[in-house]
């Protein structure tokens, strides 16, 4: 197999073509609705991906908030390209040894799924032909682009898709590698390394969704598949491995289809609605309930290849169902899984006989109220089945939570791009390029060496810091005098342990100032480092400041004397244990004591006090 990555990182430089902030917002100030058409491009061609989306005929509703002006609403021409964002892309180009173009031309990339109010995404090629060293291998960098992020998709219902405009126009740097990656594990490492380089520019947005990856995968004899919008870096390996498995399976199926001389006829679908009257539950209940029709389509030679034996991987059935879904249906039924869904074996036989099928033939059923839509779905299935005899279709797929992917749309072609005439070309001057070189920030490799040296941290921990979003916070907090070990524990152990926000609450992203105050609280003995998780949870739940958080977490006013008397009470209550187990009583008692201390005093202080108390009791017992 071979794979390539496209890494998209949001920049914190202000929006790319207007002066709006790059912060997301839950505040709404209104909405409007639009339709998009598949416009013809520079060469009068219509892009297949664009035509596909336009064919869905959806209405798009856009929610407007405080981070929007007329530019994102497509009500005003774009302003000049954000210079700081361009500098950031050029900085990354320098990191990746890539060659900047002489004159930048902003392009329009047609995207008519509604995620851009204009119907296109503005994008510009900034540099090309670079490379990156990962694990001793050289990975080529094909292109570095600067583009605008799309609107956030909120929901879809009743033929209307709702987007929010806050994210639209945030600058994205896109780094595309060559198809040099040879395993899922390597894909993850490359993504991590590019992420570290991006963060080293110091101008990136941080947090969930601010970096997204597209993964291109193909196996020998297969076709390029683009998995679009993977948000979790850790899952890249899984998606790649799953995709390789899917493509290998489809190639096996292809070989079997060829051996059987399977083929797809040009026949019109057969209406078998009458066969399925009187089924009370499941998808076929729609026939009686809503007057849905059932259409059947034969697949000669496909029997047994739609679904594998139980326990093994699903085969073509899922591919076909995806096509039906792309047409707006809930899915389809196929003969390998029937009889099921409340139908009898006789009904399956009836369909088989109406289609004049032999044992080795399969069929699919679609159920829908609209005959046009049902027929369109079957045309898609038939087209997909024809390709199955040849191999693997190139397509764009959406990542699912379980590591698998789902068909999204055809791969876009070259007709997709034409010049953005509202923005004049930008000449890159020698002065600008030498300034970029002069002001180049520290590279991740140098950063790693420095962190190891300055803080005496292990290479493994430094790697974790540099590959994370929190690296700038780590640097800032240690610069303010906090011990590196304590900062690492806070950023990489305690903070990730804070659970997801309660419904309606924003996700918890404490500022450097808050974390600084928290660490200062520990250092001044206001509460123990063991109290940090409780403090973070309290802050995440909405405590406005540190003092309130200490109060609400019940961490205040627990003096060393309070600790002594608490321990004394617990040890005396367990006097028998101390007598029988003597010094070995320490461990069980420490657990009890820590539970009650709840992070209000330092662990070491508690342990010392407990040892003293045990010794005292033993002395009393001995005397």
């Amino acid at each position: 197999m071979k794979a390539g990555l496209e890494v998209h990182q949001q920049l914190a430089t202000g929006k790319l073509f207007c002066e709006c902030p790059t912060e997301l917002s839950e505040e709404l100030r209104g909405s409007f609705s639009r339709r998009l058409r598949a416009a013809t491009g520079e060469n009068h061609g219509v892009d297949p991906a664009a035509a596909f989306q336009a064919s869905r005929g959806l209405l798009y509703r856009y929610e407007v908030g405080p981070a929007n002006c007329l530019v994102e609403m497509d009500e005003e021409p774009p302003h000049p390209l954000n210079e700081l964002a361009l500098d950031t892309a050029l900085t990354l180009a320098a990191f990746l040894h890539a060659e900047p173009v002489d004159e930048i031309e902003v392009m329009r990339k047609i995207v008519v799924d509604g995620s851009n109010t204009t119907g296109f995404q503005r994008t510009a090629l900034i540099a090309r032909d670079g490379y990156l060293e990962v694990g001793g291998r050289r990975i080529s960098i094909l292109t570095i682009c600067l583009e605008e992020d799309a609107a956030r998709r909120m929901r879809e219902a009743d033929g209307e898709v709702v987007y929010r405009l806050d994210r639209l126009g945030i600058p994205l740097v896109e780094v595309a590698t060559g198809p040099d990656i040879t395993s899922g594990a390597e894909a993850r490492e490359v993504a991590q390394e590019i992420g570290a380089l991006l963060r080293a520019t110091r101008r990136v947005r941080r947090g969930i969704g601010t970096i997204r990856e597209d993964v291109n995968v193909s196996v020998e004899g297969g076709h390029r598949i683009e998995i679009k919008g993977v948000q979790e870096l850790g899952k890249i390996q899984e998606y790649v491995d799953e995709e390789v498995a899917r493509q290998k399976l489809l190639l096996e199926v292809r070989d079997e289809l060829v051996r059987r001389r399977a083929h797809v006829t040009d026949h019109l679908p057969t209406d078998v609605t009458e066969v399925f009257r009187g089924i009370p539950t499941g998808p076929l209940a729609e026939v009686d309930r809503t007057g849905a029709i059932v259409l059947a389509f034969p697949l000669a030679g496909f029997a047994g290849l739609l679904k594998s034996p139980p326990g093994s991987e699903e085969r073509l059935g899922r591919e076909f169902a995806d096509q039906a879904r792309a047409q707006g249906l809930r899915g389809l039924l196929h003969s390998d899984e029937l009889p099921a869904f409340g139908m009898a074996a006789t009904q399956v036989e009836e369909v088989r006989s109406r289609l004049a099928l032999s044992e080795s033939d399969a069929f699919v059923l679609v159920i829908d109220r609209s005959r046009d839509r049902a027929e369109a779905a079957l045309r898609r299935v038939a087209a997909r089945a024809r390709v199955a005899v040849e191999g693997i279709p190139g397509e764009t797929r959406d990542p699912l939570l379980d590591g698998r992917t789902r068909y999204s749309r055809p791969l876009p072609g070259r007709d997709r791009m034409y010049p953005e005439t509202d923005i004049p070309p930008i000449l890159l001057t020698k002065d600008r390029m030498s300034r970029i070189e002069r002001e180049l920030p520290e590279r991740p490799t140098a950063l790693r060496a420095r962190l190891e040296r300055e803080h005496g941290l292990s290479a493994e921990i430094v790697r974790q810091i540099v590959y994370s979003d929190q690296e700038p916070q780590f640097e800032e907090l240690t610069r303010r005098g906090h011990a590196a070990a304590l900062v690492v524990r806070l950023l990489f152990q305690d903070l990730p342990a804070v659970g997801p926000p309660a419904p309606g609450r924003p996700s918890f992203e404490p500022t450097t100032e808050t974390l600084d105050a928290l660490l200062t609280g520990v250092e001044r003995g206001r509460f123990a480092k063991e109290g940090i998780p409780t403090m973070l949870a309290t802050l995440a739940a909405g405590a406005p400041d540190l003092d309130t958080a200490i109060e609400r977490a019940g961490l205040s006013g627990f003096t060393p004397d309070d600790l002594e008397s608490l321990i004394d009470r617990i040890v005396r209550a367990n006097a028998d244990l101390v007598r029988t187990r003597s010094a070995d009583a320490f461990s069980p008692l420490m657990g009890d004591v820590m539970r009650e201390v709840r992070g209000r005093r330092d662990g070491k202080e508690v342990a010392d006090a407990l040892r003293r108390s045990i010794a005292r009791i033993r002395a009393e017992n001995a005397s």
Partner: protein
Amino acid sequence: MRALPMGCRVEVSDGHDRRWIGTVVPRHDLSGDRILPLKLENGYNVGLRIEPTFTFRLLEGVPATVMPESLPIASSTLPVTDSPFVTLLTTGGTIASRVDYETGGVKPVKEEREVLAFYPELQNAGRVRIVPVFDRLSEDLTPEDWWVLAEKVVQAFREGACGVVIAHGTDTLGYTAAALSFLLVDLPGPVVLVGAQRSPDRPSSDGATNLRAAVEVAHDRRIGEVVVVMHAGLSDSRFAIHRATWVRKMHSSRRDAFESRNGPALGFNERGTIRFDLPPRPPSAGPARAEGPIDLHAGILWFYPGLTPQRAAEYARGLRGLVLAGTGLGHVAANHLDWIREAVERGVVVTMTTQCLGGNAAPYVYATGRELLRAGVLYLGDLLPETAYAKMIWALGRASEPSAVARLLQADRAGEFGRRHLTGGDQ
């Protein structure tokens, strides 16, 4: 480099290890010196700075021009049926323009098939006959063109159209609309001007939705006047029907740039349902006529602090009619009274409108107004300066005596006067 034809595929080498393969595309008129624009294999255009050491290798020649196939339904082949049809006159402008990749700007299309290439849905409608009239941006249209359009409208009705749609650039659409209101009489159906604020090469163009809404309005049997149909808000679902003499472009880029001033629009077209808040002028039994000639010895003068009487007098020289856009209720500085008095004595019809673009020009409230009135200035109430100008061009053509021109200007002709000025719902 100059020898490289547009559209050919080349390999460019810097003589060392740098290489580019791409198609030569048109230069942007703001490109830098010695920049060769190339469309790379990945679809991106980039500009390459050519050095003397560079070498070129031609990989492929220029492909045959790819143009959309000639589309059917030309006006001459419109099927003869009894069902009513609308004639679409195109004049150029954003609604009928394509991107010019050479200059980076938008250029109007010239032919019917190009219009159909942008709006294939018109083909299916089967009730629209397309007649290209001009292929110019609206800033390049002149009052003579208004007269040509008026005659084309008359011809369209004579040929049996139930309504006429004029696709027009938005910049001066308001002027043309107002002028046609005065030039055309006895309209048997609607004349609908429509434009677009986004060019049709963009998926988000408002051209198609506006055009569709305009064609629907042009089929409405209740209307016998010139109207403008454009977006009523930012959504693609509601379109305002403006009386041509009341409407003005009030924003440079928004879809809902057109506003009826001094009160609400006549009505709305919401998803094909047409509703009127004010009664439109009813259709006449016809036949439609264009009443000319026009006289172009007219001008608009926007008063501003610092405008000297000499400069203003210079501007008025040679004119037969002048529209002043005065401040507030219709004022100019007191030191302008002399040249105005002289102009009126020479026979120039001097009129006053307000540059507030809302409310009346009213001469009696302040001494300045009373002085201007005494000097012979004709106050035109709430007419927009552009509407007053269009009316002036018509009136000057219809009468020679200043007093007769003044009478024409003051009489209501197209429903332009007599508007009640109400407050909106939210005060």
